[in-house]
């Protein structure tokens, strides 16, 4: 092997093929039938269950678990997918510990909730492994709708609209569908090419025409879409990345975390994917964790997440933080990146310790320098091309509860809109609910 974890610079092949394969395998082993039965038996079938309330898509969790208990996982999957057509992906990526499982009464009772996420995966995997798509398209309504973006919001919206009999044209700027599910989530959370499989399974509903490689603001405009279709749904996500605003940001080795993850997700051979020996990820969200952990899994020797506030302020869930630290990632808090040092390429990162005051973050004057070959920016994303004449607030599209934008005929949902957490499951809920509102609006 030419290189190893201690090889300087940004190089590939730090780990053997076997190690890489093991590292990027399914993070969470799926439940087998017996494990699912044991886990399902723990559900109390609560009245007006708190887990349902905690789920942004309001999946009837006690019902689907009871269906698993009684040996009908396919029916359980249907219960899940009725509310959340991306239930398979959400079972993999949802921060269940802050949603359904946090609300589980057994969490209150024993500190050990029913394993709702894993049970959901058991049900949805069981159904999807059969290849069956359990929904039927209603008869054609004659209405046509453009859905822009094929992330969770766009897919959920398109599926719901198609199911109701509308003709959907689904656009995506990239050549491959799936949005963040395909490009933005750590590989070990969606092993086995799951995101792509899920999209193909979802499209089986029919009535959806896919147009990929078509960019809003380039090949198509919002006005054209509004003219050509009865309604438009924007699920365009956040395409831009916030800048670090530190000296030396232009040096080689400074990259967007999202690009790194996207690149990693699409790489055919991870042993060929270069990574630094000393990697620093600036940020505190899920993207920061995904970039940091995957750097470590690729063989980086030292990986540090640098966050500007206290650890409990990180938007990555506690579970994700623990996952990072147990993977060997160091979490450094209360530091701000001031300068990136290096002659062309990154060689060191200079931080200043900060304290939280009423006036904001104030530098303490204490400086910390860390060796760095590679620095990932994960300090939030921005709306890339803001479509004209749409109301924007805080860098996001303004929508009402039903997903209506300030422009007639235009709905929006997912990360590109204000309100709601930027979670896959929230995006699914917003896409689905917008579809319902579009349907109700068009069918009056």
């Amino acid at each position, binding site marked *: 092997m030419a290189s190893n974890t201690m090889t300087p610079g940004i190089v590939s092949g730090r780990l053997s093929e076997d190690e890489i394969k093991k590292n990027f395998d399914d993070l969470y082993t799926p439940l087998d039938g017996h494990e699912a*039965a*044991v886990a399902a*038996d*723990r559900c*109390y*079938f*609560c*009245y*007006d*269950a*708190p887990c349902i309330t905690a789920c942004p898509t309001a999946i009837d969790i006690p019902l689907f678990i009871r269906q698993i208990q009684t040996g009908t996982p396919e029916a359980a999957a249907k219960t899940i997918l009725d509310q959340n057509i991306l239930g398979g992906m959400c079972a993999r990526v949802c921060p269940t510990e802050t949603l359904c499982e946090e609300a589980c*009464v*057994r969490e*209150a*009772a024993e500190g050990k909730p029913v394993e709702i996420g894993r049970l959901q995966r058991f049900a949805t995997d069981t159904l999807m492994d059969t290849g069956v798509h359990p929904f039927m398209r209603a008869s054609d309504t004659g209405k046509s709708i453009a859905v822009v973006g094929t992330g969770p919001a766009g897919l959920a919206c398109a599926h719901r609209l198609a199911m109701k009999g509308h003709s959907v044209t689904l656009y995506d700027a990239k050549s491959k569908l799936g949005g963040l599910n395909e490009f933005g989530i750590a590989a070990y959370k969606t092993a086995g090419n799951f995101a792509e499989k899920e999209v193909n399974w979802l499209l089986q509903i029919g009535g959806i025409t896919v147009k990929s490689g078509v960019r809003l603001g380039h090949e198509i405009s919002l006005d054209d879409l509004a003219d050509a279709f009865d309604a438009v749904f924007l699920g365009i996500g956040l395409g831009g990345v916030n800048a670090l605003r530190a000296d030396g940001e232009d040096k080689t080795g400074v990259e967007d975390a999202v690009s790194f993850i996207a690149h990693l997700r699409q790489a055919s051979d991870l042993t060929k994917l270069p990574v630094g020996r000393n990697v620093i990820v600036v940020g505190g969200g899920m993207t920061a964790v995904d970039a940091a952990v995957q750097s470590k899994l690729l063989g980086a020797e030292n990986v540090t997440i640098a966050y500007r506030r206290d650890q409990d302020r990180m938007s990555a869930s506690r579970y994700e933080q623990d996952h990072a630290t147990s993977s060997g990632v160091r979490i450094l808090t209360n530091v701000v990146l001031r300068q990136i040092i290096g002659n062309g390429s990154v060689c060191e990162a200079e931080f200043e310790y900060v304290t939280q005051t009423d006036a904001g973050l104030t530098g303490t004057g204490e400086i910390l320098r860390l060796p760095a070959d590679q620095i990932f920016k994960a300090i939030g994303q921005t709306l890339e091309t803001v479509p004209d004449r749409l109301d924007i607030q805080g860098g996001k599209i303004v929508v009402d509860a039903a997903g209506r934008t300030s422009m007639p005929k235009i709905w929006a949902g997912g990360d590109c809109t204000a309100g709601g957490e930027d979670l896959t499951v929230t995006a699914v809920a917003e896409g689905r609910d917008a579809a319902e509102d579009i349907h109700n609006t068009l069918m009056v």
Partner: protein
Amino acid sequence: MADLSTNFLGIKSPNPFWLASAPPTDKEYNVRRAFEAGWGGVVWKTLGSEGPPVVNVNGPRYGAVYGADRRLLGLNNIELITDRPLEVNLREIKACKRDYPDRAMIVSLMVPCEEAAWKAILPLVEDTGADGIELNFGCPHGMSERGMGAAVGQVPEYIEMVTRWCKQYSRMPVIVKLTPNITDVRKPAAAAKAGGADAVSLINTINSITSVDLDTMSPEPSIDGKGSHGGYCGPAVKPIALSMVSEIARDPETHGLPISGIGGITTWRDAAEFISLGCGNVQVCTAAMTYGFKIVDELKSGLSDWMDEKGYASVADVVGRAVPNVTDWQYLNLNYVAKAKIDQDACIKCGRCYAACEDTSHQAISMSPDRVFEVIDEECVACNLCVNVCPVEDCITMEPMTAGDIDPRTGKVVEPEYANWTSHPNNPSTQAAE
């Protein structure tokens, strides 16, 4: 430390835990393991007459009913009496009794309803040194179709007749094992007593089909696509057994007749309950078949600790303690008023009490938007359903009201005096007071 030894019909055993006549007691190998594990006695699996032994099915003999986490709640079986030659069983019984003289050795018997058949087998059993016999009048499957087992147990006259033969031709104590597959268990018990039985044991298993295979449409256990009713046992039958035991214990005709309690005994607590309802000892089968012989350690330690805590010196001190409290419904105190109470600290907010009460009972539990569940005393009839469905023990309790207080449901004062249905004004049979 409490004395767990028992003297049942003069048969001494170091503890009240016997293994019931069943698969665990069919062979010397198993019985030796049981005695090594610490069981107080065994009732050897039922012997039949000399000659070619019975044959068993060669497919599944057991079917099951499960609770959560596949915990076995009920088991049924279609196994017959021993299918090993009589002389082999007798030889092994003799060897076991010889090597474990301090343990109780009872031999279960089932031969045709003919005097000669009983007269023939009794001396053979006596010769083993066994302490007593148990007459299997209970087996509900297979043997009953041949005029034995439950077919005898369902006819009090036969019970009395066979019991009399056994007393006549043997010096051994006779225990008559009763079938629950009858309408009134007091009748066969009385017949056994009339025939001279030293004791009754109950219950034998209950006619049952545990499930139906919905693919093959065959009852379980399924033998080549067909099923037959088997004998049901295990924790699920305990309430039925306790009731039948209590009926015999409190009936004037059978009161005082020694009882060996059987039916779903799984823990020391179950055993103590049977003893309190009048059983001199207990017999265990399904629990041992589910968890192995080692459970006897828990049975012994649990019973002993509880007796120490309550100040009972011996098992005999406990026997029948609860019998005076078993009564008929009409004598229950209608002036006793209780209300459910929810311990908010213990509540985990599952809402099962609310669903149960709101959907199927008296709408006596309120639910706030933040999931606080509270009892509405004005509606609560103290039915206990909320207690029963609550997953947290002692989270919901039934609190008796104090005499003199006003029951908010009825608006009436809780009377201090005992008053039952026999004197209630709504009872058409009530004698007017004047």
